[in-house]
C-alpha cells in the first residue's frame, strides 16, 4: 500500500512539471501582458512602457522567463500581483480560506441532503417517494447553476431580505466572537444552498442506482436466509456496499474545496478563489492566474490520489498490494 502511495506521489512531480509548462505557455500565449491593460499613468510614452517591460523581464526569451518563474514557485513565491500590488501568495491566502469554508459548508449540505434522499429513493423505488425524489433530480439537473443562484439571490436576498447578499461577514461584528461566526455562516447560507441543491442530484442518482442494484444481489438473499431482520439487511449489506462510488468521489471533492465555484462566488459577490480567478483573467493578472491554475491542478492530483486510497481501503477486491 505504501509503495503504491509513494509511487503515485513520485509520479505527481513530473505531472506537476508538465502542468506548469502548459500553464505558463497558455498564460504567455494570451494577448497582452501586465502592462498592456490598464496603464497607470496615461501620460507614459510607449518607449517608457518598453523600458518598463525590459525591466520587468517581459522581453526575455521564454525559457528564461519560465525558469525564473518556476524557481520562484518552488520557493512559494508566485510573484507579484499586478493588480493588487502585493505578493500573489498574500492575495490567495486572504481568499483561500473563505473558499474552503464555503465549499466545506456546501459539501456538508450536499451529503446531508443527498444521502438520506438517495437511500429513501433506492429503498422504496417505484413508489411515490422515489418518483418525487427523481423528479427533483431531473429538475435540479436541468437547472443551470447561475440561474438558480440568481433566483435564490433575488428571492431570499433582495425581496425577502432574509439573508445578506454579498461578502463574507458583516462589518458590524468583531473577529473572534460568536456573533462573528454566526455572521459568517449567515453569509454562506445562500451561496452554499444554491450550489448544494443543484449538486445533490448527482450523488442522489448514484446512490439510488447502487441501492436498486444491490437490493437484487445474491448476497442480500443469503443475508435474508440467515434470518437477519430487514433493517439490518439494509444497514449491513445493501447500504454499506452502495456507498462505494460515493466514497470514491469524496476524493474529488477536495478539488472543489480549493478551486471553489466561479459562478456561485461571482453571483453572490463572495470574495473567494473563484471570483479571484475570473477577475484576474479579465485584468490580465498572469501571476495570479498561473498560481491559481497550478493550485487547482495540484488539488486535482491530490484528489485523485485520495480517491484511489479511499476506494482501496473500502473495497477489498481492488486492494493494491
Amino acid at each position, binding site marked *: 500500500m505504501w*509503495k503504491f502511495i509513494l509511487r503515485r506521489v513520485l509520479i505527481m512531480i513530473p505531472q506537476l512539471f508538465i502542468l506548469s509548462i502548459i500553464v505558463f505557455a497558455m498564460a504567455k500565449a494570451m494577448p497582452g501582458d501586465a502592462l498592456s491593460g490598464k496603464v497607470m499613468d496615461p501620460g507614459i510614452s510607449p518607449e517608457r512602457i518598453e523600458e518598463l517591460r525590459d525591466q520587468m523581464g517581459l522581453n526575455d526569451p521564454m525559457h528564461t522567463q519560465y525558469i525564473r518563474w518556476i524557481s520562484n514557485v518552488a520557493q512559494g513565491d508566485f510573484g507579484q500581483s499586478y493588480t493588487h500590488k502585493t505578493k500573489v501568495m498574500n492575495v490567495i491566502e486572504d481568499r483561500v480560506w473563505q473558499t474552503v469554508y464555503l465549499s466545506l459548508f456546501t459539501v456538508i449540505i450536499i451529503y446531508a441532503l443527498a444521502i438520506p434522499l438517495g437511500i429513501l429513493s433506492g429503498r422504496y423505488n417505484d413508489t411515490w417517494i422515489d418518483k418525487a425524489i427523481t423528479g427533483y433530480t431531473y429538475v435540479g439537473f436541468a437547472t443551470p447553476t447561475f440561474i438558480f443562484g440568481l433566483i435564490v439571490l433575488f428571492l431570499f436576498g433582495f425581496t425577502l431580505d432574509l439573508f445578506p447578499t454579498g461578502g463574507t461577514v458583516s462589518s458590524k461584528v468583531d473577529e473572534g466572537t460568536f456573533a462573528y461566526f454566526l455572521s459568517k455562516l449567515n453569509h454562506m447560507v445562500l451561496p452554499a444552498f444554491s450550489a448544494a441543491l443543484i449538486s445533490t442530484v448527482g450523488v442522489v442518482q448514484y446512490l439510488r442506482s447502487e441501492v436498486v442494484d444491490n437490493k437484487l444481489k445474491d448476497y442480500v438473499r443469503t443475508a435474508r436466509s440467515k434470518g437477519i431482520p430487514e433493517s439490518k439487511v439494509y444497514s449491513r449489506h445493501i447500504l454499506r456496499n452502495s456507498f462505494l462510488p460515493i466514497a470514491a468521489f469524496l476524493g474529488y471533492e477536495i478539488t472543489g474545496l480549493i478551486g471553489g465555484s466561479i459562478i456561485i462566488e461571482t453571483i453572490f459577490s463572495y470574495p473567494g478563489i473563484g471570483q479571484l480567478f475570473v477577475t484576474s483573467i479579465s485584468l490580465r493578472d498572469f501571476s495570479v492566474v498561473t498560481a491559481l491554475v497550478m493550485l487547482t491542478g495540484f488539488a486535482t492530483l491530490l484528489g485523485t490520489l485520495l480517491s484511489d486510497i479511499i476506494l482501496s481501503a473500502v473495497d477489498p477486491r481492488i486492494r493494491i*498490494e
Partner: protein
Amino acid sequence: MTLLKVEDLKVHFPIRGGFFRTVVDHVRAVDGVSFELEEGETYGLVGESGSGKSTTGKAIVKLNKVTSGKILFEGQDIANYSSRQIKPYRRDIQMIFQDPYSSLNPKKRVLDIIAEPLRNFERHSPGEEKKIIQDYLDKVGLSPDSIYKYPHEFSGGQRQRIGIARSLTLKPKLIIADEPVSALDVSVQAQVLNFLQDLQEEFKLTYLFVGHDLGVIRHMCDRMGVMYRGRLVEEGTSKEIYNNPQHIYTKRLIAAIPDLEPSVREEKAIARQKVSEEYEQSYSKYFDEKGRAYDLKPISTTHRVALP
C-alpha cells in the same frame, strides 16, 4: 494426415510487482503441451478449472499470445504469426464459445452475427448472403425466419446453435469447442451434441473439444488428453482413460465422477477415499520438485502417461 500438431506449447502470463512494476514471475497457464490431431477425429482436452485447457484452445485460435512452442497447422507453424499472416488461417480454424449468453452480440441481429465471418473474407450480394445464412440455420435446426431476430429472443441451446452456425460459415477444417454445452440443460445438451456429430460428418470437420465434463467428453471424443496445471498428464483413447487410468491425477478424476447406479455409492466413496490417500502418498512420484508433471511416455501405441 495430421491436421494439427502442437509441440511444447507454452503460454505464460507475466505477473508484475514490486516498486517499478517489473515482471516478477509468470503464471504458467500452459507449460509445455504436445499433442496431435488427425483429420476427421475428435480430440478431447479435459481438465479442471486452472488446468490451462481453455488457454490452450484459445492459443491455437490465436486469442492468446504464445510464449514459446510450435502450433503446426497442416505443416505450417502459426504460433508466432502476426495478425496479418494469420488472417487466411482464420478461415480454417474456428471456435465455439462456452457461454451462449455472452458470446453473441445482443445488439446485432442473427443475420449479422452469422454473416460477420463471411463478410470479413468473402463478398456476396445481400440476397446471396441471406440464402447462405438461412441454409446454415436450417442445418443447425433453426427456422429460416430467425435471421431478423435478436439473441435475447432465443433460449440457451438455440443461442449455442447460432454460435455453431457462425463458426461454420467459412467452412473451417478445425473447430475448437470450448465447453460448448456446460451452460446448457441435459436435454438441450443432447440436442447440441447430436448436431455437432451430424455436422462433423457432413462438413468433414475435426474437433478439439475442451471441457471438464468427463461424460460429455467420453461420449464425443475418440481420444482424450488430461491436463493438470498446464501440462498433459495422460493421453489415450476414451476407453483407455476410463478403464485403465495410469496417472494418479487421472485416477482421482475418474473416481470423483458420480455414477448413475445408486447401489455402488458406498463402494465408490471408499474407492474415492483410497485414491485420495494414494494421491497424497505418491504425489512426489508423479510430479517433480517444482510440482510439474513429467513428459508423456507411451505405454502403448495410443496411451501416453506422464511418468518420471
